[in-house]
């Protein structure tokens, strides 16, 4: 097949260590990149803005979370709160007159600082108790945002995102907003791929596997846990701001509730913990499959093959979503990323499927 491993002999470390050592992978990445750049031409504005755009942004969020949960092993059930902090800081900074580029940076920093406070709990406890602690922080942040009028603009208020420019391009058009999101998700992807093959990434993995053992081999556990929380919260904060400016174009507390946190964790798990391609697949799966299946049921209903009430139809996405999570955990705990990996490895050695790789 097109994946061929034969004839590829790296003679330098640099060549063996590059991000995509196999030409077929490079081709694949190139084609996908070209498709992503051409998407505004290929897809109608409706599909671009209501499917592709949220998919990209939520992929960035899932990538930020997988850095924390998958690579560093710190469980986090309050990531939507971190994104909310980023979104609100971003909008307030732009309103205060800062250019959008700096506001994004500021949003990331504010989210990173508060997110690191979340991380303080991780220094004390781990596993289950960390889940509970981050869950409690999610509720606290939600409450502060809703009840402090300076942040939310009053109870039940919606803050409109002010019109702004990114690198001198006004964000008024959907295409411009799409490209901002694309740039951001590409940046996060490259960052994650590189973290995974650097010393920092290996230290984080050591902390994930067993923090005491990591300390024994000379890894500063406290520092790396905080680094993981800081980096991932920074990315999450900027993603939140991008989400507010490019997708919702407004921000309300309801966009970042506990359910969104659960959704993000679901994306990471369905995709596969720590897998970069998995974050893309997981985000697509969790966002799109309930929509597609619900549309299917609605279609069957309209054709008269099913007789479901509107109430039932409105709850079907929730059921599908729950079944998806349960099904994936039972059948493929390593997620879509692992399935992709299996297919890729099969093709690499095709037709000699018993050679091990």
């Amino acid at each position, binding site marked *: 097949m097109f994946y061929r491993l034969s004839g590829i002999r790296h003679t330098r470390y640099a060549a063996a260590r590059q991000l995509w050592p196999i030409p077929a992978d490079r081709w694949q990445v190139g084609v996908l990149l070209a498709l992503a750049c051409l998407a505004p031409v290929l897809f109608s504005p409706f599909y671009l803005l209501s499917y592709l755009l949220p998919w990209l942004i939520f992929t960035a969020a899932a990538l930020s979370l997988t850095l924390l949960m998958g690579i560093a092993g710190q469980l986090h059930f309050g990531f939507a709160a971190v994104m909310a902090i980023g979104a609100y800081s971003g909008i307030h900074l732009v309103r205060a007159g800062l250019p959008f580029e700096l506001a994004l940076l500021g949003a990331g920093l504010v989210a990173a600082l508060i997110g690191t406070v979340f991380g303080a709990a991780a220094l004390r406890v781990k596993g289950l108790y960390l889940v509970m602690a981050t869950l409690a922080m999610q509720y606290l942040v939600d409450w502060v945002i809703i009840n402090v009028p300076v942040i939310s603009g009053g109870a039940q208020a919606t803050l409109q995102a002010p019109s702004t420019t990114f690198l001198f391009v006004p964000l008024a058009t959907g295409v411009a907003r799409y490209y901002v999101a694309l740039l951001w998700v590409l940046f996060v992807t490259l960052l994650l791929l590189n973290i995974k093959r650097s010393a920092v990434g290996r230290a984080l993995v050591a902390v994930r596997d067993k923090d005491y053992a990591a300390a024994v081999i000379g890894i500063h556990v406290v520092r790396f846990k905080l680094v993981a929380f800081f980096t991932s919260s920074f990315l999450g904060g900027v993603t939140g701001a991008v989400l507010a400016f490019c997708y919702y174009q407004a921000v309300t507390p309801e966009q970042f509730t506990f359910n969104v946190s659960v959704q993000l964790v679901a994306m990471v798990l369905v995709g596969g913990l720590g897998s970069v391609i998995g974050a893309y697949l997981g985000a697509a799966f969790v966002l799109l499959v309930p929509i597609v299946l619900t549309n299917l049921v609605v279609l069957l209903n309209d054709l008269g093959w099913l007789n479901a009430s509107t109430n039932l139809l409105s709850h079907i996405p929730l059921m599908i979503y*729950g079944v998806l999570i349960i099904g994936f955990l039972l059948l493929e705990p390593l997620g879509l990323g692992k399935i992709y990996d299996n297919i890729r490895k099969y093709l690499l050695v095709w037709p000699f499927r018993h050679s091990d790789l």
Partner: protein
Amino acid sequence: MSYFIELLVNGALTGAMYGLAALGFVLIYKSSGVVNLAQGAMIMLAGYVIWMLVMVGLSVWLAIALGLVLMFLFGLLAERLLLRKMVGQPIIMIVMLTLGLEIFLRGVGPGFLGASPKQIDLGVPLAPVIIGDVFINRVYLIGGIVALVLIAASLLFFRTRLGTKLRAVSDDHVSSWSVGISVERAIGISWGLAGLSAIAAGAIWGSVQGVDWTLSELLFPAIAVVILGGLDSVVGVLVGSLIVGVLGSVIPGYLDELAGGGTRDVVTSLIILVTIMIRPYGIFGREDIERV
């Protein structure tokens, strides 16, 4: 002053009713080390089961009795079909699996039965009990008493033959196997018992606020109760639920007007956070010693 006492008494009773939700949590965690985030949804499901049985034409008490059997079976099934396959998986997988079950149940119940709240009538008169100048809701009073009875019953249960087996299982799975205890069955039974406690909570909370998906939000105060009391301690449920209930009633009673409402969730969150930062295993919980 009477306002304070009223908050105190009602808070303690509400707390005891949180204890009903927390009890199921502890039963499961004590035997299998699994945190069941679907406990809130199980209470909702129990409420729906009772409501449906009443709609079929049974009296409330018969419905509750039959509901006990059904929810016990549901607990057994959930353990057999879902949780048993997850043995040995990382904690995040198990937590997420129970959350998936929670989301699914939250879709199924209101989806098939209608989203409007369903009333369960326990036949308790609406007039409050008046002691001095303190008004106490009768259902809360009964709920509090039922909670206390159930907690006491679980304490006694853990002294019976079966309860001793469950305690052995909670201590160590492998050594339980080696002395001939069926660990799988013990864990299954603990899920069934959690289903039983869900019926009690579902009947009482369902009659207080109606059965709809908001019942599953009992999960959050229940988590605070078990974190505070200790995840594997029945006595902890009693103490934790009283503290969470009283603080969650008295503090919002004075602060809600100043802060613009919703301080109960803040109190609950802070209880969780402070406990985890100071004494993660709770007041009565057993501290896990970890080895590399």
